[in-house]
């Protein structure tokens, strides 16, 4: 179960910002361009998304806050997802699982599980068999994607569910 999301220097979230999640439905509202989809990007990013295009950027470093309102660019971007793991859904021996990711301006990046440096592979293994983000995140403007998908893309979604 999702417990919270922390953003720091991630896209328009230059200041450390936390979203706490309760069971049920959490709504996120706000004006155009305020940063709502950036929150979605952060969740995809933490879960191991490797495509800058999926982050709407050209390079992965595009997710680092790069200036606004007199605030200078950040040196790095950081995002952390905290899970309540009491039901042991994630194959880790702790009741709280924190997954973090950082990227620096020079492109260096880091993954963390409960504060320990890990590999992308470890992040992905955590979520195998729990339902992949291939279908648990419906991005803005992309709801019809599964209907228009070419045959092999559509198959991939079904196979991941099998």
């Amino acid at each position, binding site marked *: *179960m*999702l417990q919270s999301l922390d953003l720091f220097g991630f*896209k*328009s*979230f*230059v*200041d450390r*910002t*936390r*979203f706490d*999640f*309760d*069971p*049920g*439905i*959490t*709504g*996120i*509202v*706000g*004006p155009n*361009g*305020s*940063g*709502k*989809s950036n*929150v*979605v990007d952060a*969740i995809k990013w933490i879960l191991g998304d490797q495509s800058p295009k999926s982050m709407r950027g050209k390079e992965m470093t595009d997710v680092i806050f790069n*200036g*606004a*309102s007199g*605030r200078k660019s950040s040196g790095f971007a950081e995002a952390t997802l905290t*899970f309540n793991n009491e039901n042991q*859904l994630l194959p880790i021996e702790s009741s709280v699982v924190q997954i973090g990711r950082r990227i620096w301006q020079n492109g260096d990046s880091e993954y963390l599980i409960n504060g320990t440096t890990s590999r992308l592979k470890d992040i992905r293994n955590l979520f195998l068999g*729990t*339902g*992949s*983000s291939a*279908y*648990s*995140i*419906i*991005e*803005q*403007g992309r*709801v*019809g*994607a*599964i*209907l228009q998908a070419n*045959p092999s893309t*559509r*198959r991939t*979604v*079904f*196979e*991941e*569910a*099998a």
Partner: protein
Amino acid sequence: SQRLFRESFATIQTHFKEMFRKLFGGGESDIILEDHADVLDCAIDIVARPPGKELRSLSLLSGGEKTLTAVALVMAIFKSNPSPFCVLDEVDAALDDANIERYTSLLTEFAETTQFIMITHRKRTMTVADVIYGVTMEQPGVSKRISVRFEDVSEDGEITPTSPD
């Protein structure tokens, strides 16, 4: 393996029919393996017939009908292989208010076992959120999170928070 895929497919198929009927208040739908001899490679066809209408190709469906059909399929896959959470970014953009009702009812059902993070501009959709966060830019270009109560959202969707964070 063929058998595993067939079983998972059959489950998704059953759920898809159920989700579709809930979202459309009727009608029929199906997913079909194009080649029963080659289930690990063949294409998967989607069939959707809104209530009272004749069966036609998916492409002829309206924008809102396509949204509901896609949501039905995604939620069917979700039900067959649940993820702890689901993120929906403005999925209701093409829906009229009657369909937002059906869409949000379905989410409310799922919400007993699934956490949803739902981004929306539509006031009607906000009514089913247990908690609402506002994202604003007081300083241009700098995002800030504020707590929002449903009463703080005006009829025209603007946020005027009554309590500071």
